[in-house]
């Protein structure tokens, strides 16, 4: 009997699977046991042809392949290479001892060539934790696999090279060296594409400022404006002002994208923050993840990046409500009859909506034909647990108005804004680490309902002038309890951007202008009535 390690994907995790092969007299053929999925079962044919094309025809005997543990369902074509190696070892082409401590993955072509598979990063991490001595991977996937520290991986082009690696130590070293060389040249070639730049947009400084605040404080953002005002253009540029991915984040992003089959393995680790913009007709499982076997949804694909929901109120209530968990906990749990699965989903939510269903409400030239009820229902979608987590609301005026704005000088490009965002974030970290040294910090956390204003204000560092302004806003019913907390946290972010430990009245006033203007009509506050 011969055995080799393989890995099955469950969500973004890979679990070890022992692939065993046994050859005995009997009717010729390959039978496969151990809960193989359809694609794994079909490995029989690819292995048979691949081996024959490589000059190692399988013996005309009974070959049994077992995948252990037998109760984990195995999916995908990644088992082709391990099955082939186990079968070839059982058939005597490779010594069974050479497979000791060896892991493998890859899809076989009929001529023996190896193709990359989904989730190679997760497999590499599992292999490292599993104590694998040598991981045999498709050459194209070497960059992705080698992003994991502590993995000894050899990239091979085809089944023949994989067998050579196991047979011949000298050949193995040459192939390892080829892989290292290949990685070095690739790194030189790789250039960093940051995506669209903020400087591409003329004017809209108010909205750009809001993007900067959202990036600095990790606030979720809602943009309200008529069609064509540039909401999507602005949202697409938020990833470019977020801090660059650090090593851990890059691994997290790559893991999800690779499992979803959206990552190009030759790119190694992801360098750009994701931007995902599902259409409003998307289903719950498309957004949150699901299917059989479960795959990551848009929320997880946007992990560490931006999830943009254009036409926010048009999304089904089910989809919007399902975003509650990722917004609260930064992850999604998919529960199925076979068990539950946890996927990462920490993203910045950016919503965009028209001021009313037809988009023309209060437009200087066009007429709105929506009824008060339609408006109510449209705006109503914003309420609830998800709407409550959106801190920033900005109006994006129609182009006709902003086109006449006087523009002086050039606006900052994304790199400049990103530098400010990064320094605000590090200022915040420093401030919070000082704060946690104080004895009262054990009180923090928990729901907003428990935050006593005084305690919250003292933790945030509110100046006297800012405090009286906040009190005024509360007493005039410009903000309620939740709105107060939101205004305060936004003001804190504004102060962090200025590297100030105390929140000034200016910060509060600006935070108030970035709040939800309310329903029906923006002048309700002025009219002194709520609807």
């Amino acid at each position, binding site marked *: 009997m011969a055995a080799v390690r393989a890995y099955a994907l469950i969500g973004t995790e890979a679990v070890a699977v022992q692939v065993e092969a046994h050859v005995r007299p009997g009717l010729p053929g390959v039978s496969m046991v151990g809960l193989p999925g359809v694609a794994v079962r079909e490995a029989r044919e690819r292995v048979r042809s691949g081996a024959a094309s490589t000059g190692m025809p399988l013996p005309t005997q009974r070959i049994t392949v077992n995948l252990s543990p037998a109760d984990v369902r195995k999916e995908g074509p990644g088992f082709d290479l391990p099955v082939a190696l186990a079968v070839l070892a059982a058939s005597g082409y490779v010594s069974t001892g050479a497979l000791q401590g060896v892991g493998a993955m890859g899809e076989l072509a009929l001529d023996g060539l190896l193709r990359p598979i989904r989730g190679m990063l997760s497999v590499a991490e599992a292999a490292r934790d599993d104590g694998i001595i040598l991981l045999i991977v498709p050459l194209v996937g070497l960059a992705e696999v080698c992003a994991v520290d502590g993995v000894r991986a050899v990239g091979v082009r085809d089944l023949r090279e994989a067998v050579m690696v196991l047979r011949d130590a000298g050949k193995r070293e040459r192939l390892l060296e080829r892989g290292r060389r290949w990685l070095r040249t690739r790194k030189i070639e790789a250039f960093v594409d940051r995506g669209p730049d903020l400087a591409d947009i003329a004017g809209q400084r108010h909205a750009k400022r809001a993007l900067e605040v959202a990036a600095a404080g990790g606030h979720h953002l809602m943009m309200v404006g008529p069609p064509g005002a540039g909401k999507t253009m602005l949202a697409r540029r938020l990833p470019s002002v977020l801090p660059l991915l650090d090593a851990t984040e890059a691994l997290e992003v790559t893991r999800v994208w690779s499992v979803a089959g959206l990552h190009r393995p030759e790119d190694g680790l992801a360098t750009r923050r994701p931007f995902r913009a599902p259409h409003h007709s998307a289903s719950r499982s498309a957004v949150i993840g699901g299917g059989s076997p479960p795959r990551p949804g848009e929320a997880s694909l946007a992990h560490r990046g931006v999830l943009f929901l254009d036409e926010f109120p048009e999304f089904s209530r089910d989809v919007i409500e399902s975003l509650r968990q990722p917004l609260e906990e930064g992850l999604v749990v998919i529960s199925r009859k076979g068990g539950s699965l946890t996927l990462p989903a920490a993203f910045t939510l950016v919503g965009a909506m028209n001021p009313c269903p037809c988009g023309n409400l209060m437009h200087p030239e066009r007429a709105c034909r929506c009824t*008060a009820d339609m408006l109510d229902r449209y705006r109503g979608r914003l309420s609830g647990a998800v709407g409550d987590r959106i801190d920033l609301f900005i*109006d994006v005026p129609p182009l006709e108005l*902003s086109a006449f704005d*006087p523009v002086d000088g050039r606006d900052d490009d994304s790199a400049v804004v990103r530098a400010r965002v990064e320094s605000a974030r590090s200022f915040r970290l420093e401030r919070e680490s000082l704060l946690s040294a104080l004895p009262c910090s054990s009180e923090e956390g928990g729901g907003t309902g428990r935050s006593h204003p005084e305690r919250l204000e003292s933790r945030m560092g509110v100046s006297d002038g800012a405090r009286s302004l906040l009190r005024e806003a509360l007493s005039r019913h410009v903000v309620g309890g939740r709105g107060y907390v939101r205004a305060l946290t936004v003001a804190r972010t504004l102060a962090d951007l200025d590297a100030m430990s105390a929140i000034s009245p200016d910060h509060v006033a600006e*935070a108030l202008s970035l709040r939800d203007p309310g329903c029906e009509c923006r002048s309700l506050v*002025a*009219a002194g009535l709520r609807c």
Partner: protein
Amino acid sequence: MSGLNARGDRPHEVRRDRERPASSPTYEAALGLAIVAAEGTRGVLSLLRRHSPEDVWRAGRRDLLEWTEGRSWVDRFLDLRSRTSPREAASAVAASGLVFVPWGHVAYEADLRALDLPPAGLFVKASPEAFEQFVAGARVAVVGTRKASPYGLSVGRAIGKAFAQRGVWVVSGLALGIDGRAHSGCIEAGGRSAAVLGCGADVVYPRRHRELYDRIGSEGVILSELPPGVRPAPWFFPERNRLLAALSHAVVVVEAPQRSGALITAHRALDLGREVFVVPGRISERVSEGTNRLLYDGATMCLDPVSLVEDFLRFTRKETSPFLSGVSDPVSADSGENGLEQAGRLAVMALSAGPRSVDAVAGVAGITSREASAALGLLELRGQVVRVAPGTYGLSGR
């Protein structure tokens, strides 16, 4: 259409005592007519201009056909009448907490008898004192579209307030938009307001105005010609508007697009010889098309709330005494926030020429976008500016 002098001949004597026993024949006949009219034979109300409610209620088919020159609804009326019991209806009215004010009440003398189809009676939700004051007082209807602009809403409220301060009853329809704002402006200034509904006076419509309904019901007057419990229906509202016009000494239209209900009120008021005041609007706005057309046709323009009230008192020759001295100005800006206050002053100057976006305010005022944003946030908090369009701020009315 007939004018004011239609009240000419008076075939039966008007009894003025309010404490009419609920069982009087006039009361029962009027109540019966009100119910039957609401169920679909409104035409019968036209007979009230020449005949007493009792006569109409008891009239035989031949008389009715003769009086109406053979109208088609006569048989339907007879059918409905045979199935209506005023005595039972009277107890239903009592149970609903409303008071039925029948034909012949003093409220009818000048205001309602001029109508082609005068109501057989009014179902009223009010204290007896409030209703008495309502009947005796100066009354102005303030009406407009449900989908008003921020400008219209703030003007509606200011007008409600101005009339309240001179002790004039503000009458409106409790609808969303201008109506609601006129009511609440009046109440906030300590005035009395009356709502004329297009449904039963005990039905809260629109639901969102529950609070407003309760306040008007407890301090002012809510009335309708429809029996208790009748749900609102589109065809009730034009009829409600004629009642609104007839119960008021003048009509102020704040914002109304073409073919708006508020225009119906205005035209019915003109038919009755009432003065119509109109708030001018921007010519580019759909909600101003109807009101500006009225101005073009010769309606009196409202220059500002205060002179509007003066004009109203002069036109209607109503003597009133203010029962309340003006509400003090709540805005008292603290000093000590120099940069912000200065940016605010510049922003207000930048907005004096008209509404602008945040970025445009920044450009004109020579301040940065974030300074403008902060300044406008503060000014909005203080009620000095409003958002008039997405991303666009304007100065608030006053």
